[in-house]
């Protein structure tokens, strides 16, 4: 009780001392520090991913907490996204209204189908010459000419944070020297690019274990729905030991209003295929399109040498150690030492310690469904009904067949008359002959379970819900199947192993499709739906 009293007195003092401070005028801002406690730039280059040699050395600092002294792992990654609205084009040509996230950094990478997550030296570059609808507009797309894509490969070189501009006030005040890109943004650029620029799926994100990730959500408002004062949030689905504050549930935390930016902060969790979405009125905002994927790459990608020895070395880090008596430990040392090794160039889905999750190419496959009636009502000023929600478009990465096999991003003409970048990701699974493909499959459908089957190469399921399928004795519990079924809010990882070149030859085409046969349709068209191609190159 005495303790409580003291703390209340401190609280009052704090109240009084804060009363004299003024609120900041700048509502849009981005955050991408070049140095942090965890990643001090003097010890470490935060603009590249260093190889992993062992746990970071930690020692108490003058403020009483553990800080790195050597052997710093991971780096800093940043991304900016808009929360707003936009339009997408369905495979039957229908223009569909979205509540959606859009890219406000990594525009070039996103146009190339890659994650829009960047190192600080890329993110912290000022933007020039961006136009409404970018990256579509900067690539010379003329309204009404869709599908005049794919983009020319030399288009729009810019990957930095949209709106980032020199902080003139800080320079004038002597707090910063030019160019002083400290997160201050020019809101005109943010609004020019971000308004009506929503994507389905939401911007792809990828981080590496040990990274610090600064994710800035900038709420640009929904131009088609001026009656709504909607906040948006980011829920990093599956983040272990999450804090309620950065969990993105508006009921349990804070949510950002229109005209403001909120930066979410995460230390990269264990490797795996996660996803993210808005958590405001989920039946509405998810159905309307605010769904995306985020995956975490394992340390094993950055390890040189025997993989079993690598995983053993990782046990020296208490944070990621997997003691098999810990009931939530997912990747204990494998029961069998395979002798597999990495030279720093091989890619793995998980810290398997035995090489069993190695892949040559990786593809996100995000399952979703749209109810066209709900989307139509969502564009009007009427409340939507939930009981009768019925999906009629069945989407892989925001598109139905045959758009799933159209290379490059898709654009959609919006109500401002401009073409807007709308669906960045095709779903063509290109496997080099003799190679292995990792499919990162997630489902954020709002209404029903979805099945995806492989006609041709069997699916080997290696992980469920971002966790390696391995028992606590270290046995891999992978299984082969021809189909997987997911409900909303689930993910799994599948390897398509085409290493037998006598069976899977260059030029072969196989199909991923849904055996929910009524989902092989695009609304009224008895054709299309949840389907794409696997091509051996």
């Amino acid at each position, binding site marked *: 009780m005495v*303790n409580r009293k*003291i*703390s*209340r007195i*401190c*609280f009052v003092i*704090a109240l009084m001392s*804060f009363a004299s*401070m003024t609120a900041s005028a700048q509502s849009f*801002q981005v955050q991408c520090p070049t140095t942090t*406690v*965890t990643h001090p730039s003097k010890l470490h280059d935060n603009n590249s991913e260093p190889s992993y040699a062992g746990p970071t050395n930690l020692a108490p600092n003058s*403020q*009483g907490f*553990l800080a790195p002294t050597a052997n710093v792992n991971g780096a800093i990654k940043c991304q900016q996204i808009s929360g707003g609205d936009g339009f997408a084009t369905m495979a039957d040509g229908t223009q569909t209204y979205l509540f959606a996230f859009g890219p406000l950094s990594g525009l070039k990478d996103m146009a190339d189908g890659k994650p829009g997550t960047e190192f600080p030296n890329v993110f912290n570059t000022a933007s020039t010459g961006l136009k409404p609808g970018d990256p579509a507009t900067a690539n010379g797309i003329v309204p009404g000419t869709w599908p005049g894509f794919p983009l020319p490969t030399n288009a729009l070189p810019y990957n930095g944070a949209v709106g980032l501009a020199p902080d003139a006030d800080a320079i004038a005040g002597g707090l910063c020297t030019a160019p002083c890109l400290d*997160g201050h943004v020019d809101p005109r650029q943010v609004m020019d690019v971000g308004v009506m620029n929503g994507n389905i799926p939401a911007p792809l994100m990828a981080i590496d274990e040990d990274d610090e990730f600064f994710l800035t959500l900038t709420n640009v408002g929904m131009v088609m729905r001026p009656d709504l004062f909607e*906040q948006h949030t980011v829920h990093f*689905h599956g983040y*272990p*030991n*999450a*804090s309620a504050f950065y969990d993105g*549930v508006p*009921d*349990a*935390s*804070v949510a950002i209003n229109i005209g403001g930016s*909120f*930066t979410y*902060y995460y*230390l990269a969790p264990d490797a795996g295929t996660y996803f993210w979405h808005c958590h405001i009125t*989920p*039946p509405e905002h*998810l159905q309307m399109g605010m769904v995306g994927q985020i995956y975490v790459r394992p340390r094993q990608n950055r390890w040189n040498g025997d993989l079993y020895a690598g995983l053993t070395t990782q046990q020296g880090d*208490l944070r990621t150690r997997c*003691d*098999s*008596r*810990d*009931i*939530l430990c997912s990747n204990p040392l494998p029961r069998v030492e395979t002798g597999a090794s990495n030279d720093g160039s091989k890619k793995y889905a998980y810290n398997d310690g035995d090489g069993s999750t190695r892949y040559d190419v990786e593809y996100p496959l995000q399952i979703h469904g749209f109810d066209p009636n709900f989307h139509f009502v969502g564009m009007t000023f009427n409340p939507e*009904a*939930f*009981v009768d*929600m019925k999906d009629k478009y069945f989407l892989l990465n925001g598109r139905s067949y045959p758009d799933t096999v159209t290379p490059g991003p898709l654009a959609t003409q919006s109500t401002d008359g401009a073409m807007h970048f709308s669906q960045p990701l095709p779903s063509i699974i290109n496997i080099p002959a003799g190679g292995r493909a990792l499919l990162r499959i997630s489902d954020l459908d*709002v*209404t*029903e*379970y979805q099945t995806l089957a492989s006609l041709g190469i069997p699916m080997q399921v290696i992980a*469920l*819900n971002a*966790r390696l399928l391995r*028992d*606590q004795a270290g*046995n891999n*519990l992978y299984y082969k199947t021809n189909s997987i079924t997911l*409900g*909303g*809010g*689930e993910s799994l990882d599948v390897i398509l192993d085409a290493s037998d070149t006598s069976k899977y030859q260059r030029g072969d085409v196989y199909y991923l499709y849904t055996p929910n046969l009524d989902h092989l349709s695009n609304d009224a068209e008895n054709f299309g739906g949840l389907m794409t191609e696997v091509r051996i190159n």
Partner: protein
Amino acid sequence: MRAINMKKATLKMPLLLAIMLAALLLAPAAFAAVPGITGPNLKLTAQAEYLTQPDGSAIYSWGYGCNGAPSGFAPAAVSGAFCKNMQVPGPTLIVTEGQTVVVTLTNNLPSAAGNTSILFPGFNVSTSCKDATPVGQQGLLTCEAVPGGSVSYTFTATTPGTRAYYSGTQGDLQMEMGLYGAIVVLPSHIPSTCSNGLPLTNPGNNAAAKAQSGETDFRLAAAAYDHPSTCYDREYMFQFSEMDPRIHREAEQQSSRTCTGCMSVATEPYVPAYFMINGRSMPDDMDPNYSPQYPHQPYNGNPHLHPGELVLLRIVGQGRWQHPFHEHGNHVRVLARDGNLILSTPDTADPNLAGPLLFTTTTTPGQTIDGIYYWTGKGLNWDPYGHNPASGDPLAKLTCTPDANGYNTGTPSAINYFEWCQDHNKPVETAPFGDVSGGGPVTLPDPNILVNGTWFGGSPYLGPNATVRAVGSTGTTPPSGTIGNSPTEEAAFAFMWHSHNEREITTNNIFPGGMFMMMLVDSREFVIDESN
């Protein structure tokens, strides 16, 4: 006969929401546990009654209830227990491994509904159709009770775990109407490590911490199975089902027909509008167990836990749809399906767990999952307790001494018991906030452009001490009196546990509702009292 009360919900929504919110906020703190009735002799009846829904409707339903007072209620620490003659879900039957269980069912449904029965999947059941007393009528799947008649089911509770029970007669209608429940078999041999304390990696102290803060034990047992990896500190049950109001309306209209078994209600097309956990829709599910306003829906869903506690989730799919249940905050280790422990094969002497780790546990009709969840805050890379060694507040200057796994478990009386020590004192915000130091990686926006949630504890930090120290004039504290998670008393980390087929977190077209509840991680400053 009361007329079914299907109000024009949308018209009354603002008023209803206000009432709902007021009821929610005025209600005493409501917690959960796994309440039920104890065996091994259980007398049940199947009857009709009305279920209340948060949109104001009262829905004609059928359910199992107690035929007379049960022999006992468990856990003993939950007060106010009752078992009326109809409830949805049916009474949770709590028995012990090895017991001979006798369930006697009397059919008090309207005679138009015809026969009824109970299936106990996973057990080898003998029925009174063989024994002849009481007289039953052999149906397709099991022995059935004719209107007004009784049957009995006898089986040995051979293995521990959670299982569903439900009607074996015209299941498409009787399950929909509410004839389902759960049976929990407690292990007969609790592993000795459970009494030594939890968890296995930090033996000895969770029970001590519970005792230090004066908390009562609300478990049915110390372990879910006869296996040391199934020990737990708390437990909660989640039964998922849905209702199509048209079916209930038609059944009600035909219930007064005098002929026997002549009811004919189409169960397709199926358009459910109510999505329930433990028979209640959000926010009713967060009201207490045995709350008087839900006489026929006695069980709630409102989990609380402390950092480091192992929490057993007993998840049961009822109804006819699958529902992906997403547990925010961490993964769940699946222990067992349908009461069958999932173990790896090679280590037969000391078998390890082999169930998957899931952040979304699909509930399939009739299927159960037992799983274990915990939350510690490990890996946030900042101190969720907002400790500040430069503070004048002794609670802000607590120490953190890592055990072999990195947690502060040496002093069970400490309020930061089970803190993850690697992040101790580590700031998250660039600027200091009140009595929480700065120097961290991120900057919060102007608080005037943020909206605070109903369950927001008032700061980024866990527990009242840290929250009160952290919030100055930043305005992150919601106005007093309008919150479900007081900054000065609880300041929990609230996590939403819900169906991720998000359409199902609605109640008859109204959001929020349906299969949705908040789970609260409480600091040790807050005493978790699940006695009601």
